[in-house]
């Protein structure tokens, strides 16, 4: 563990400029550039707002504001987006960098760190736009806003731990990559992002509680929609699972890092 941290510190220059390059390369080839960063989630939010709020008349039971459902959607979709992006990019992190891994010697742990940082950077940009929207419409949650920081930390920890586990496994078992795509589809709809958790029947709520992401997304909703303190106690299992995957991920990485190059 210690040598991993030292390696990250020593190669921070490489990590940081890789994050910058990652950001640039994603948008420099397109005409609209960084606007795509906003356009993609915006399109998704519009589709869900129209279908669920307008056509299917979904309403939030307690809140009445005109933007209530939009805020509900945004707080869930944007944070889910961070989770899904980390996971889907982490599972291919070693495979996509095969060329570099095979020819240059450097601490391999840098690659997942770059992914996590660049996902967080993207998230912060788009999330600050959301916060701006909240402030303008007078829906900013105030000091309670800071409750989302621990939730974000738990979420990123969970995504990174699971991501690195899948990333290492994917090198040896390429089925993992296919599986993750399918998994994320199901996972999205098994998490109360689009629909409202409290309107579900009790038996369905009970099933959803087995999903570690439910407590996380509910936490965001509590802060942004209901302006209440999130239920941190409900996140205890998520924290436990996040820690388990982090330990498993680091274990697998250390055990198989040397063999990885031979498989790529």
């Amino acid at each position, binding site marked *: 563990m210690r040598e991993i941290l030292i390696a990250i510190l020593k190669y921070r220059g490489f990590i940081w400029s890789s994050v910058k390059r990652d950001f640039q390369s994603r948008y420099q080839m397109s005409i609209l550039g960084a606007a795509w960063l906003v356009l993609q989630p915006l399109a998704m939010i519009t589709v869900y707002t129209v279908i669920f709020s307008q056509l299917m008349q979904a309403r939030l039971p307690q809140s009445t504001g005109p933007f209530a459902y939009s805020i509900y959607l945004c707080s869930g979709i944007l944070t889910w987006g961070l989770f899904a992006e980390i996971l889907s990019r982490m599972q291919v992190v070693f495979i996509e960098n095969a060329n570099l891994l095979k020819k240059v010697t*450097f601490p391999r742990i840098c690659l997942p760190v770059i992914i996590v940082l660049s996902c967080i950077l993207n998230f912060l940009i788009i999330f600050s736009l959301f916060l701006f929207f909240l402030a303008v419409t007078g829906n900013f949650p105030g000091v309670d806003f800071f409750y989302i920081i621990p939730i974000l930390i738990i979420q990123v920890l969970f995504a990174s731990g699971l991501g690195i586990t899948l990333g290492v496994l994917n090198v040896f078992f390429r089925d993992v990559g296919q599986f993750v795509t399918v998994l994320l589809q199901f996972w999205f709809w098994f998490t109360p992002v689009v629909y409202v958790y409290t309107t579900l029947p009790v038996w369905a709520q009970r099933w959803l509680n087995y999903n570690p992401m439910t407590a996380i997304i509910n936490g965001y909703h509590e802060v942004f929609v209901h302006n209440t303190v999130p239920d941190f106690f409900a996140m205890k299992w998520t924290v436990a699972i996040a820690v388990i995957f982090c330990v498993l991920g680091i274990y697998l990485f250390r055990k198989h890092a040397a063999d990885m190059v031979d498989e790529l």
Partner: protein
Amino acid sequence: MYSIKVENVSKSYKQYPRKIDRLLEWVLPSKKKRFHEKHVLNNVSFEIEKGEAVGIIGVNGAGKSTLLKIITGTTAATSGQVKSQGRIAALLELGMGFHPDFTGRQNAVIAGQLLGITEEDMDEVIRDVENFAGIGEYFDSPVRTYSSGMQARVAFSVATAVKADILIVDEALSVGDLAFQAKCMQRMNKMLEDNVTILFVSHALFQVRQFCSRAVYIADGEVKAFGAAAKVCDLYQNSLVENKISIKEQENTGLIVNHKLDPDITVNPNLRQNSLQENAGSLALEFLDFKMLNAEGEEIATLYAKDKVTVQAVIRCNRDVPAEACVGMLIGDKNGFPVLSMNSNYYDTRLESLKAGEHVIISWDFVIPFYMGEYRIDIGIKPEPYSSDFYDRIFCVKVFTVNTPVELLKENFGGMLHIPAEMKIIKK
């Protein structure tokens, strides 16, 4: 003091007969071995001094690249260890892991960061890379638009721009054009003067002979020889021939028993390994073997300028043919460019009429006119010199290397030929 010390290094890859076997091995606690090992390197040991240039030679698949990867640290040895002193700059398999979407400049920066260049030094290093690579405005275009030669230029420039203690180069010079190769050799010579250790893989043996003081010859994952470069190169080149003979002798014993052939009539089953079957002719006359012999009658593949050689082709007649057939021999450089044409009719020699089942051996005795380089021989038989039909034809039937005499090599000789010349210096 050593610069690189390789101690009993072995490498084997795990091969699982079915994909599921690896999963079973990971999840099941049982100690059952589900894979078989493929040995690539076997107990390799040698030691390289600081400031020395060492060549690594061997046929494709001998384990040279794997060995370099282990020394560099991109892959781990299964057993044994490598100790090295100081910073290693490596150029493995013609690349530095460049990202195709980034420009040459961006990639050079990434590579520089990975080699541990600090922010302050980076500008200077990049300027040096740009100058040395000499690819003009392509340096600011994405690497995917580069030719392989341009990539090699940038990669070599990056690897050598950094002040390193050890430089590892894997066949980097084979892609670049001649001008760049020369530039690379100059830079590597300069590095040697600066006491940098250089480990160098090349199939161009003359480069190894010229540049390296010692060489490691690797075959089948083992060190076959380690010592003075010229000696090891000779050994390697002649062993290529020996390999062939041993196969041939096995085949021959069978043939002799079956057909009761004259012992001079030898058959080489590998004769056509570099030539396409479509290129052969009607096979009314067919080549069975082709040899290059030295004055002692031993088969050779490496020789020195002014050596006397005998070149011999064994021909079998499969169908009756009329007289006047000519046997062609063309010596070309390694790219196949014709350099020396020695068809039998140029020397007033034509075959007599032959009956099916008869054999002839035709031979050329001559002095090698070349002073350096690698050459290939193409052979063919035509019914008469102007015919467009062939009885038989084999491309690249033989490859040989001519070594420059040491006294010329020391004068940094570069060229295919060397001729007597009258020289004058007039002082005014």
